């Protein structure tokens, strides 16, 4: 079979190359359809109860999309005419942006506390700085410990003020979304947690309708942020200006990922070229791997474009992974070819290629299959983005394996034999050293493995799941400084909502809400305020606090509250309270943002404490729900953690099964799976010991480590078994021979990838750094276990068949 394929490829090399060129062109065209969606939304599980609940709540309370711009004077007082002038001017420029609905700042908010009575005929616009030009001193007095605006418009220390740019929602999109929500609401009621086929289709159709609008919106947002930076630029002489808020954070993340992709993509590419050249000292051994890698990625991306697979934050590493796996295949082929070239001085290029292909076809295919199986296990995670990552990797593997296996002989067939190639001195020394070491020190190796494995298990137990978007940016960066300033001084980043449904017995027909309800809310808010991690907290309570302040420190009665609510202008109540109180559903919303910069913050524990505290306040679990991004991220992280870490057993089970099919021996299958388990365990253990939390970016590392490790294992085991089958060999000889052939390929791939990816440690984006270093570590670990433990186990347990027959 492999011989037939080899002949076919070599005979029709030109034709195949033409086909690849065409396919490449086609792929390049369809690659334009491919979308990278780095926004965190893609992670949110569709049709998940919590997700739908958040959607419903968001629709009900319609919180607005906003960006915060903080203004921190350098040499003048915060409350001064210069500040007022600057704020005035910046705000009016913001206001001119088309999608901006309004800019809230200290100059245009109604300073209700300046009125010394609660007058229903209040004209809020009359109580602003803009209307009255209050003195700086008066402004300072108003904003000191203001129930609504402290932490929102002025920080506690009064060193900076924020402008809140509020964007108009897109009506069309809103409409489509509410249609989708209306359908999805179905899962919230009743037992059936699944949507019907028909509903799914309706949702799909609606989503397709929404998509172009969303794309457009995304572009607009990018431009808006750029524009905002332009607007604030001239003011930077006198003040520090910072942008913040959940959605700037998202944009910064996309920007940094994109620039990283370009910078480090080319740096890694260059490094790989360099190392390839140093190792093989021939241009063709540089060009060929690059060609295979480039074409594989191009074809894959093109295919994804056609299949409408989208890269998410989780799957954004697929290109890097595909590079690694393709390189591995090509390097194995190169090494094999060169060795044949060295030993066989007679054959011509075509014969050498044929033999290389025949020798390497099976192990490469097997490696591809096992890696795919590893990734296929992701399909059972039940989490949409992880499932699609699984599919993407399976497709990518298929493309890589076939592209490299076909391209390698096809390209080389057109060349004539050049001859003269031998491995470098250093690698020869390393190979013989390793081979000798594994043969002479089996006990030491096994013992060390056991110790390290045990240590790793302890490390795994210490593993934590924590996702702080802020921590994605390196501490020294400007972006981090800006975002952290807003996070710390202006009330946090990741939104968390507590929705309190007023219990039936607390509802009163004649009151807008009873005193008991407000007091309950006040208690909850009081408890929430004391957590270290909660930033700004707003709800109806803040308004009653303000009312109390205006009322000379006396609480309102529930009837007074009702009168105010009824008498205030409807649009004003909507503006003030719409986001916090929904009369139809008798629901109240406490809105907070979690400060991502809180040191040593344990998010899962925080949620548990909050729930426990609510329990102590005797608030029934069914009368409140926690929603919004914070909970959603936490939920998906927990699920990812469970699916990734807890189903590792499943992955290794499947892997063992495939190995069993490939090698047709229980013993070999078990032995071959051990280095993979070890590599994965140690990677996770190292993360545990170093307290690197698993977050949305690092959570796929176990799958990656395994994908890398299995490659090395297959090649090694396959060659070992082949060597073993040769008449003259005993197991020691087989190990030595395996080292001499596959050993070089392992060293080369490890060097290339480890060096290449370690470059990522210079990135400003922490997940990239971690990804680079952990991948590097995974490569090294896989290499070490496959060249020490694996040969020891093979030698010990897998004896040559003829030897067995003899005895």
């Amino acid at each position, binding site marked *: 079979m492999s011989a037939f394929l080899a002949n076919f490829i070599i005979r029709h090399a030109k034709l195949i190359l033409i086909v690849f060129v065409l396919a490449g062109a086609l792929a390049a065209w369809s690659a334009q359809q491919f979308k990278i969606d780095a926004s965190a939304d893609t992670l949110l599980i569709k049709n998940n109860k919590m997700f739908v609940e958040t959607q419903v709540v968001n629709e009900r309370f319609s919180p607005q999309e906003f960006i915060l711009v903080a203004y921190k004077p350098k040499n003048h007082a915060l409350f001064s005419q210069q500040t007022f002038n600057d704020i005035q001017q910046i705000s009016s420029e913001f206001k001119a942006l088309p999608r901006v609905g309004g800019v809230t700042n200290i100059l245009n908010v109604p300073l209700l506390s300046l009125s010394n009575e609660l007058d229903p005929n209040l004209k809020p616009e009359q109580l602003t700085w803009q209307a009255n030009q209050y003195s700086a001193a008066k402004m300072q007095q108003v904003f000191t410990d203001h129930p609504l605006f402290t932490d929102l418009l002025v920080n506690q220390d009064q060193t900076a003020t924020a402008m809140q740019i509020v964007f108009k929602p897109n009506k069309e999109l809103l409409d489509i979304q509410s249609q989708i929500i209306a359908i999805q609401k179905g899962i919230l009621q009743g037992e059936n947690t699944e949507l019907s086929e028909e509903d799914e289709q309706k949702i799909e159709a609606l989503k397709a309708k929404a998509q172009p609008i969303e794309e457009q919106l995304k572009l607009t947002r990018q431009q808006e942020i750029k524009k905002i930076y332009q607007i604030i630029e001239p003011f930077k002489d006198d003040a520090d200006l910072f942008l913040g808020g959940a959605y700037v954070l998202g944009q910064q993340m996309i920007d940094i990922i994109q620039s990283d992709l370009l910078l480090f993509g080319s740096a890694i590419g260059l490094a790989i070229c360099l190392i390839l050249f140093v190792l093989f000292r021939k241009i063709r051994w540089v060009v060929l791997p690059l060609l295979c890698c480039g074409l594989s990625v191009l074809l894959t991306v093109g295919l994804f474009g056609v299949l409408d697979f989208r890269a998410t934050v989780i799957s954004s590493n697929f290109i890097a992974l595909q590079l690694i796996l393709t390189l591995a295949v090509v390097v194995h082929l190169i090494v094999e070819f060169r060795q044949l070239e060295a030993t066989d001085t007679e054959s011509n290029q075509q014969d050498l290629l044929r033999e290389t292909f025949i020798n390497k076809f099976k192990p490469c295919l097997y490696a591809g299959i096992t890696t795919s199986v590893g990734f296929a296990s992701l399909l059972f995670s039940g989490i949409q983005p992880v499932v699609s990552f699984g599919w993407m990797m399976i497709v990518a593997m298929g493309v890589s394996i076939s592209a490299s296996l076909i391209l390698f002989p096809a390209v080389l067939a057109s060349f004539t034999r050049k001859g003269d190639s031998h491995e470098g001195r250093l690698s020869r020394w390393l190979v013989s050293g390793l081979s000798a070491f594994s043969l002479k020190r089996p006990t030491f190796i096994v013992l060390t493995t056991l110790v390290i494995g045990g240590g790793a298990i302890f490390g795994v137990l210490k593993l934590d799941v924590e996702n702080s978007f802020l921590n994605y940016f390196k501490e020294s960066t400007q972006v981090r400084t800006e975002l952290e300033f807003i996070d710390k001084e202006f009330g946090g980043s990741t939104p968390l909502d507590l929705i309190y449904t007023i219990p039936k017995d607390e509802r009163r027909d*004649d009151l807008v809400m009873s005193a008991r309800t*407000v007091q309950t809310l006040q208690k909850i808010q009081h408890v929430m305020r004391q957590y270290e991690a909660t930033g700004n907290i707003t709800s109806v309570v803040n308004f009653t606090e303000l009312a109390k302040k*205006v009322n000379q420190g006396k*609480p309102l009665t529930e009837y*007074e509250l009702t009168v105010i609510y*009824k008498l205030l202008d409807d649009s004003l109540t909507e503006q003030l309270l719409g986001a916090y109180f929904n009369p139809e559903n008798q629901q109240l919303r406490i809105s907070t943002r979690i400060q991502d910069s809180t040191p040593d913050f344990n998010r899962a524990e925080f949620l548990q404490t909050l729930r426990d*505290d609510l329990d*102590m306040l005797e608030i029934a679990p069914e009368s409140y729900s926690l929603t919004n991004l914070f909970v959603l991220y936490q939920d998906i992280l927990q699920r990812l953690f469970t699916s990734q870490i807890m189903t590792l057993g499943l992955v290794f089970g499947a892997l063992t099964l495939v190995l069993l099919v490939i090698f047709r021996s229980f013993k070999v299958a078990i032995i071959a799976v051990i280095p993979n388990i070890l590599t994965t365990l140690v990677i996770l253990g190292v993360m545990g010991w170093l307290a690197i939390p698993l977050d949305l970016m690092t959570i796929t590392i176990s799958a990656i480590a395994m994908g890398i490790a299995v490659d090395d294992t297959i090649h090694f085991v396959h060659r070992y078994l082949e060597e073993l089958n040769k008449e003259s060999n005993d197991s020691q000889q087989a190990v030595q021979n395996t080292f001499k052939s596959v050993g070089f390929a392992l060293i080369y791939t490890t060097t290339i990838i480890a060096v290449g990816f370690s470059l990522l440690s210079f990135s400003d984006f922490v997940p990239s750094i971690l990804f680079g270093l952990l991948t590097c570590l995974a490569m090294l670990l896989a290499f070490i276990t496959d060249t020490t433990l694996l040969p020891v186990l093979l030698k010990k347990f897998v004896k040559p068949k003829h030897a067995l027959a003899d005895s």
Partner: protein
Amino acid sequence: MRSHYFIKMPLVGAVLGAALFLSACSSHSPEQSDNQNQGSNKTESELVINSSHGSQTLEPTVVSYPAGSSVQGVSLSENAAFEDPLEFINRPIFAFNDKLFEYVLIPAAKGYTKVVPDPVRNSVGNFFSNIREPLNALNQLFQGDVGDSGKSVGRFLINSTVGILGFFDPATSWFEIDEKVSTINDTLVNYDVGYGSYLVLPILGQSDLRNGFSTITESVFHPIQYATENPETLYIQAYGGFHAFSPEAPTYEQLRSETDDPYIFFRNLYMQSMLRDQQYPELQNGAAVEPANVADDASASPQE
């Protein structure tokens, strides 16, 4: 002259919060004589919060003083803050007032506010405020508040002369002496006299026995009595009440229309505010808060 507060009471009592005559009083301690309030007041005065932060207390921003028998059928008697023993007589009077408002006073008030320009109504308000300054001064004196009493006398002298018979308020605008209304009711509260019971007065609206007594007595000893003869006095007093009521007419109408049982609503509104003011007395002579402002704004607000 006091009368206008009565009409206003149901209307803006809540809206103006502390503003009204009860709050303007200088009583330092909650009502002692009113035992039935004590229990509930105590439980309401602080919220106890048990959480992972330990046990803490917090002053509520919104409070409630439930009625003894709720028309809605929910028995709240175990912590009832007030009873309404005179309901049998209050209800018919309320119904009468309601019709009177609907067909006479509200239409008239609307016309009045429409026809009479703001500056004029402002001056009228000033006039009525000024003319009761002697009453304020007397009450403040009885409450032992000599300083405030002197201020009220000063205001009266300034506004009656420089302010042209009280039509303008130079005492506030030039001399920065703010008005501080004080009534017999405040004085009674100061001497720990209980409110007795909820009471609806014909035409004048929501009140209680103590406040009702205050109103009647004040109208008898009102300075206007010494300046004019009946029936002019009566006309002037009636006009004063009507003047104070007029800007609030739409408010009454709106609240009335959104309520199933307006009697209960306005009663609870009145009683809760009254009991709240008893429980949270004004910060007297506080450095930061000037209670005088409150009273000032209360009486001035209808004109604004």
